[in-house]
């Protein structure tokens, strides 16, 4: 701490080699701060198939090429029209008219990022769907995105991708004028890094021995005033809980009165009014009555029914039911075993992450080291169990994945999806949704009706308010009275049945790319259901969540 020591440190430090990031890290800096190297590497290994090179399709791709996916294929047999040249930023205006649309778009997308590989395939997806080789090509991608694909073709594509658990997810996008929706079809999506705000347990009511020892042995009454004013709130609460339990048959405070008494007990530990660490302990007292061994959302994951696998699905081995995410399920099952294991803490593993608190450097570092050591020990125990139950997974999993899983074990997410179009078959559910979310459901139904009409007359000539309304009634039943919101959506689609507005395309480009990134990186939580967009009211909403 002496001045000489300090300047020596500075001298040593400044002579060190530079740790400045390389060009790639600098280029991706603003996104690496969100999904880190692991997310980036997932993006870079992804291969994305995009059906159509419409304004919306290229807008989506732009937002995936920029952050650096590995490869994309534009599959489109269309010839660029005068209209395409007017609404698609990734065409060379008039010069592109009459030329293959995908081929024209390709160089303009590729120039966004040299490290992304892309190709244009001038084939109709219908042709690919006809042969096994073509179907295998479709299945070989990590994600398939389709915009305004013909209804029947989309149904066939969705069926193909749904047929096996290991097939890629499909994002189906539909839009006309100011209205749009997108839907991600997947069997199951597991997220070990959801970036939600869950607070991991600090083990205040289940202190591990070293923490309890600190709280018990610290002589609160006789330490010097400076130390007293810097006791970390965690230690204060562990001590307070310990004393409370001694006086209350080993119980925690439950009733509002008891909670108030507990807070009063913490206040009474103060020596001086301005000891902010004790104020902090009181403010954090909720941790004492809200510290489940396993949060209910996580407990629910332990009892998830097995996936209803399509008949053709490949088995994943071990004694796990079929799943596209066998390793995640192996970890999940091990987590359940860990919680019940006599050698474990009786709750989820400790996260080494400690929030900042009012204390001095020494106490904070000491506390942090205690948490780190304990987390390490629990990780060892977890690894032993994993090796025991799933030796193959234990061998294959990398350290970082395991750490991420354990660190986030209090906020893991498993989403179960549904086949594209499946919800619409459940008329009762759709009619109910029409009452609860009339705008979103009405818009979804109107878009479905539109796609039916367009599959008959692609130029939109048969699209009228009456024709759309009749189709919607065919979907929900003739006797169902349509809410005003559904009529507004029908009216708007009749106005602009084949309009792909630049702003709607750009909006969807962002929304769908966000979802694609979430699916690929397995970070953040994708939307599950039909995400419906209304750019007149400027709203979004989700319906048809399984």
């Amino acid at each position, binding site marked *: 701490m002496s001045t000489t020591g300090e300047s020596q*440190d*500075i001298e*040593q*430090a400044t002579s060190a080699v*530079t*740790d400045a*990031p390389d060009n790639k890290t*600098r280029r991706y800096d*603003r*996104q690496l*701060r*969100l999904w880190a190297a692991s997310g980036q590497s997932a993006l870079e290994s992804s291969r994305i198939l995009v059906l159509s090179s419409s304004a919306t399709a290229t*807008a989506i791709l*732009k*937002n995936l090429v*920029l*952050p650096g996916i590995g490869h994309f294929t534009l599959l489109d047999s269309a010839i660029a029209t005068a209209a395409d*040249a*007017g*609404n698609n*930023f990734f065409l*060379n205006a*008039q010069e592109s008219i009459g030329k293959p649309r995908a081929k024209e778009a390709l160089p303009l997308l590729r*120039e*966004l990022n040299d490290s992304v590989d892309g190709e244009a395939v001038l084939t109709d997806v219908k042709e690919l769907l006809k042969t096994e080789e073509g179907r295998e090509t479709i299945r070989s991608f990590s994600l398939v995105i389709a915009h305004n694909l013909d209804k029947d073709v989309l149904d066939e594509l969705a069926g193909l991708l749904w047929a096996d658990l290991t097939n890629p997810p499909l994002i189906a996008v539909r839009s006309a*004028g100011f209205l749009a929706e997108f839907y991600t079809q997947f069997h199951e999506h597991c997220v070990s890094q*959801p970036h939600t705000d869950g607070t991991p347990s600090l083990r205040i009511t289940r202190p591990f021995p070293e923490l309890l020892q600190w709280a018990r042995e610290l002589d609160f009454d006789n330490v010097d005033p400076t130390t007293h004013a810097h006791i970390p709130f965690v230690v204060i609460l562990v001590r307070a809980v310990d004393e409370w339990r001694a006086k209350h048959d080993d119980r925690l405070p439950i009733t509002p009165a008891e909670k108030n008494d507990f807070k009063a007990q913490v206040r009474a530990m103060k020596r001086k009014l301005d000891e902010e660490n004790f104020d902090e302990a009181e403010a954090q007292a909720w941790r004492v009555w809200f510290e489940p061994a396993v949060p209910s959302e996580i407990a629910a994951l332990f009892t998830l029914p097995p996936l209803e696998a399509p008949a053709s699905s490949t088995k994943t081995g071990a004694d796990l039911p079929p799943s596209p995410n066998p390793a995640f399920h192996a970890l999940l099952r091990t987590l359940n075993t860990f919680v019940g294991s006599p050698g474990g803490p009786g709750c989820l593993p400790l996260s080494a992450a400690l929030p*900042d608190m009012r*204390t001095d*450097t020494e106490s*904070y*570092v000491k506390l942090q080291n205690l948490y780190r050591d304990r987390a390490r020990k629990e990780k060892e125990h977890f690894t032993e169990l994993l090796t025991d139950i799933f030796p193959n997974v234990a061998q294959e999993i990398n350290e970082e994945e395991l750490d991420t899983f354990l660190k986030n074990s209090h906020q893991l997410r498993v989403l179960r999806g549904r086949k594209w179009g499946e919800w619409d078959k459940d008329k009762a559910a759709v009619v109910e949704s029409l009452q609860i979310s009339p705008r979103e459901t009405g818009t979804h139904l109107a878009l479905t009706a539109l796609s039916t009409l367009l599959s008959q007359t692609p130029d939109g000539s048969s699209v009228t308010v009456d024709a759309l309304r009749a189709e919607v009634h065919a979907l929900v039943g003739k006797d169902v009275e349509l809410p005003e919101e559904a*009529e*507004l959506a029908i*009216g*708007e689609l009749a*106005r*602009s*049945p*084949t*309009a*792909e*507005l630049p*702003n709607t395309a*750009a*909006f969807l480009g*962002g*929304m769908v*790319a*966000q979802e694609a*990134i979430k699916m690929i990186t397995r970070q*953040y939580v994708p*939307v599950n259901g039909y995400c419906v967009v209304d*750019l*007149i*009211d*400027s*709203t*979004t909403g*989700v319906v048809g969540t399984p």
Partner: protein
Amino acid sequence: MAAAAVMNGNAPSADWPGRYYHVDQILEKPGPRTDPSFLAGSGVKEFLRDKCKILVIGAGGLGCEILANLALSGFKDIHVIDMDTIDISNLNRQFLFRPKDVGKPKAIVAAEFIMNRVPGVTVTPYYGKIQDKDDDYYMQFNLVICGLDSVEARRWINATLVNLVDPEKPESLKPLIDGGTEGFKGQARVILPTMTSCYECSLDMLNKPTAFPICTIANTPRLPEHCIEWASVLEWPRVRGEQKLDTDNPEHIQWLYQIASARAKEFKIEGVTWSLTQGVVKNIIPAIASTNAIIAASCCNEAFKIATSSAAYLNNYFMLIGTDGVYSYTFEHQQREDCPVCGGESLDISISREWTVDRLIEILIERQDIQVKKPSLSSGGKQIYFQAPPQLEEATRPNLEKKVSELIEDGGEITVTATTLPFNLSLRVKYT
């Protein structure tokens, strides 16, 4: 490049048949939510494509997207202001820029790109600050869209457009559309100066920036961020003296990183990295192409609807959170009657008779709905405390220790000015 720009600027013939097939479906007939005043057909097309003049503030993450969307939507007279040059870290989202453009002015490169890609559109760039321009300049536009990352610049343009409004001249009311993003989150809003909630009205919605107490930084560091703050706030001025810290200079970041690392090592704190150092000192906000695309599209969609009356526009705030599914919230933010910019009334402030001027200044700096850094105070013609120039500061400094109640009577007004404050704030003092 220049030749292309000239050709573009004078080429209404660039409109090939069918060019606006998509947009025209909207412009040729009304929908169920279209205002009756909508003039479907050639009138609205002519206004949008030949008459409407729109200003885009910022040619960065949002700005690039906004320019492309406006051009494709049919706006043909677009102006753009940006004072920045292109950095390599912009390339993950600012899609009009390439590695060869690093170091060049954003506004100029973006304008050229748009004019080359979208024929018939004129984009007039200005490489400089919005504050360089006067009222006459802003008066020429029909609409203003902001894609900025600075609160200060937004407050300035907001106050400028509110002050521009002359009730006798309806055309002096310039709709202001403002967008902002952070990671997977963002917001877009429509401000009709003096008629709806303005940027200043919602200042308290901003997250309070994380500020670490100086005693933590100096005495009890716990986090790597504390060590970095120590290096930048305390060590830089101590060791480097008068030299100004330039957070864009890698040598400066490197120096801070090494100082912070040494401090962290001394205190056994882990986690100081180059990237974290840069993030803390530059206050870097994560940014991705997709979120910018959503928010820019929303802003341009509102601009299109307002310019054409083809559909109802946003009233007045759209907020999106894409981290956990897709959550958005569209609501009407209420105008604040005591808004210092658009409310027209003074802000009431209740203080104790015992408070000193110094204490009052501290409170003003703290307040989230005021957000001022170095306020100067006066009342009537009387100076209370001035931050600058030095002579005036020295002359008024003794007042800092005086009680406010000795200088101002109950119900009296104090005028607050500051360089970061684009208007004079009136406070009405009430003693408790």
